[in-house]
């Protein structure tokens, strides 16, 4: 099979293959998915590395993400500007980390970033409260939410500073039996 595509140079494709968990075919497929979100914005020729960013609304409406309560945080974590507007590089990065092949540590790192709503490199009680409310769609009473957050901090906070650092989080998540199978998007 020859290099019949003209979207990327062969070196670009190889570089993407080295930097993500995707094969060349999959990278091309992902490119077409990216382009389908806004065909008028995304050019068919990426050999000169155009600077194209898709707004968050388009990313959040993808079928793989639209039902996820954390889609906004996911887009924010992987986007360059931190607001959810993604370039193709960010797009590939995101799905690479969330793919089946990504190792546990890598996923844990990004999961921590996703659940850290205020971006202060710690998951504090307010972050936990936001997470619980997103997960239960605000169906728990405030007392129940508070109890849950206290329990989480009690369980996972090893350095006793009242919030979860990256090490605390990784230490806790690495043992979770379901983490790899749930922190996974197939595209």
């Amino acid at each position: 099979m020859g290099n019949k595509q003209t979207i990327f140079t062969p070196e670009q494709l190889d570089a993407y293959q080295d930097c993500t968990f995707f094969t060349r075919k999959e990278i091309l497929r992902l490119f077409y998915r990216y382009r389908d979100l806004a065909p008028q914005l995304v050019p068919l020729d990426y050999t000169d590395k155009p600077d194209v960013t898709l707004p968050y609304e388009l990313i959040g409406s993808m079928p793989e993400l639209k039902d996820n309560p954390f889609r906004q945080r996911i887009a924010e974590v992987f986007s360059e500007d931190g607001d959810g507007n993604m370039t193709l590089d960010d797009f590939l990065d995101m799905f690479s980390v969330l793919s089946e092949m990504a190792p546990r540590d890598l996923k844990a790192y990004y999961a921590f970033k996703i659940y850290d709503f205020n971006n202060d490199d710690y998951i504090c009680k307010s972050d936990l409260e936001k997470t619980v409310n997103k997960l239960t769609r605000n169906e728990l009473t405030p007392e129940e939410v508070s109890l849950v957050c206290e329990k989480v901090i009690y369980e996972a906070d090893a350095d006793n500073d009242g919030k979860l650092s990256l090490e605390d989080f990784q230490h806790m998540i690495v043992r979770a039996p379901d983490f790899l199978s749930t922190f996974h998007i197939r595209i």
Partner: protein
Amino acid sequence: SDSDSEEEPITEEELAKLKEEVEEKKKLIATLRNKPWKMKKKLSVLKEAQLFVEKFEGALGKGKGKKFYAYKVMMTKKWMKFQRDFENFKTACIPWEMKIKEIESHFGSSVASYFIFLRWMYGINMILFGLTFGLVMVPEALMGKPYGSLPRKTVPRAEEASAMNFATLWDFSGFAQYSVLFYGYYNNQRTIGWLKFRMPLSYFLVGVGTIGYSFMIVIRTMARNANEEGGGDDTSFNFSWKMFTSWDYLIGNPETADNKFASITTSFKEAIVEEQESRKEENIHLTRFLRVLANFLALCTLAGSGYLIFFVVRRSQKFALEGLENYGWWERNEVNMVMSLLGMFCPTLFDVISSLENYHPRIALRWQLGRIFALFLGNLYTFIIALMDEINLKAKEKIVKYNISVWEASLYNGTIPENSTAPPIHVDPADVPRGPCWETMVGQEFVRLTVSDTMTTYITILIGDFLRAVFVRFFNYCWCWDLEYGFPSYSEFDISGNVLGLIFNQGMIWMGSFYAPCLPAINVFRLHTSMYLQCWAVMCCNVPQERVFKASRSNNFYMAMLLFILFLSTLPAVYTIVSIPPSFDCGPFSGKTRMFEVISETLEHDFPSWFGKVFGYASNPGLILPFILLMVLSIYYLNATSKSYKEANLELKKKLQSVRNR
């Protein structure tokens, strides 16, 4: 490796260092995708590393390496896809999985545990059905003598007129009674058909085999559950894992997402209940006193109902002796009415008593189950007494035998002297007088009981749950008080009642399938429709309990009750096989003094003679008693070792905990 064509000569040390650096860069390139960096950074690092390596190592054979990597990745992905598809296929083969998952997400794991139990029972009944249908009913239907050829296979002349009526068939008399569905139809010929199929032997072995299989599978499931419970019991990060790993990022469908949200909420609520229970401060003395009081009250209730049942059964036996025609409707149905009333009111009473005890909801459910179980044993007792009475027909049999000989004499009408042979007079089988066939009668009783039980359950669901929900929903607008919050409101799913109903129903099947081979088939049909009806009813008419609690991961409590009922159910069948002579003119064992003689008959005819001798030696009590002693001792030994393993396990867990907390 090539060295660079730079100006100065390269020393050995520098060469080695360079080689090391090149290796490092190569490793970096290989693991670049695992690094938590933004794509831009990765790309620039990649470029830099590649330039470095290329400079100091020439062409790496980039092309080959990349191709091999791509191929390896493709194969890995294909393998993963295959595994995924296979898992999906396996899951798709399990029936009703989606239904149960939906119920679990809305109502919690305890309600779902009932449906999982129901599905497991369905599996067992399918196997029992396969055995009875394939090895008993089908051979007799295909290879045995057809309907009408023998007296036992024909509807008697007197009943012929009504034999096809729906009412008769619903009552399992008429044509239903004289068919492969019941014991009485089967002929006692040793072999039937061109296959020389040993029908009586097959009947006997299937009867014993269904019970043996049931025992084996119940105990195997209990053992497996016990294993699971001991294994992964890591609760140290319970809430953290719930929070961070419960949302499934693969969900791309709004309905599934709804279910998942409900399931997560329920799961959190369950965990919160557990946590609150463990935090509760107890006034130990008051609690203990209340619990003792509650148990005392429950015992009084049970004793009272037990005595009432005993009293009522005695009275009904007295009535039966004096002839039922003399008494009115109440006396005739007294036993049934008392049983139904007890079954309706006592569980509610137990519920009230249990509020004194203040247990964790899961433990309260177990106490409730245990008490209602004891209550239902009374039901079982009366049923068996009633059957035993009907079986005591020895006197009746003698009379019938006498009548038959008189009837035969009248046929010949004194025309033939006793010691000469004559062509047998052809008599229509329908006209031959019949002996009492207690096995068929027992089978019919069980079938009727199962059918009426099923009807009662369905009607209760339709009226108690569905109509009630409709009433509450639509009359709420024009009613004085809020129907939804006050009385009667929507009903909750009654786990204990349903589980016990299922267990006792299965007990009936085990007891009766020896006498009515059609019972497993009826039960399979019943369980199948039950599953759909109850799933629909739960989702449509019930509300989740206020305090959803997590069912214990093993359902060993249900299994233990099932095992007990299985044991109780096999006692009557075994007793009849061993002690009561089979009816003399119906069924595959007619003519023998005991049912198990079919075994010795088979050993005589079908096995070489030395086999019979060996069997005779093996069944010597002198051999069997030491064997039993050996088994008891090995049970004791295994129990002791398993206890010591459990203790060692706990010690290790504690050590692990302390290491982690350091």
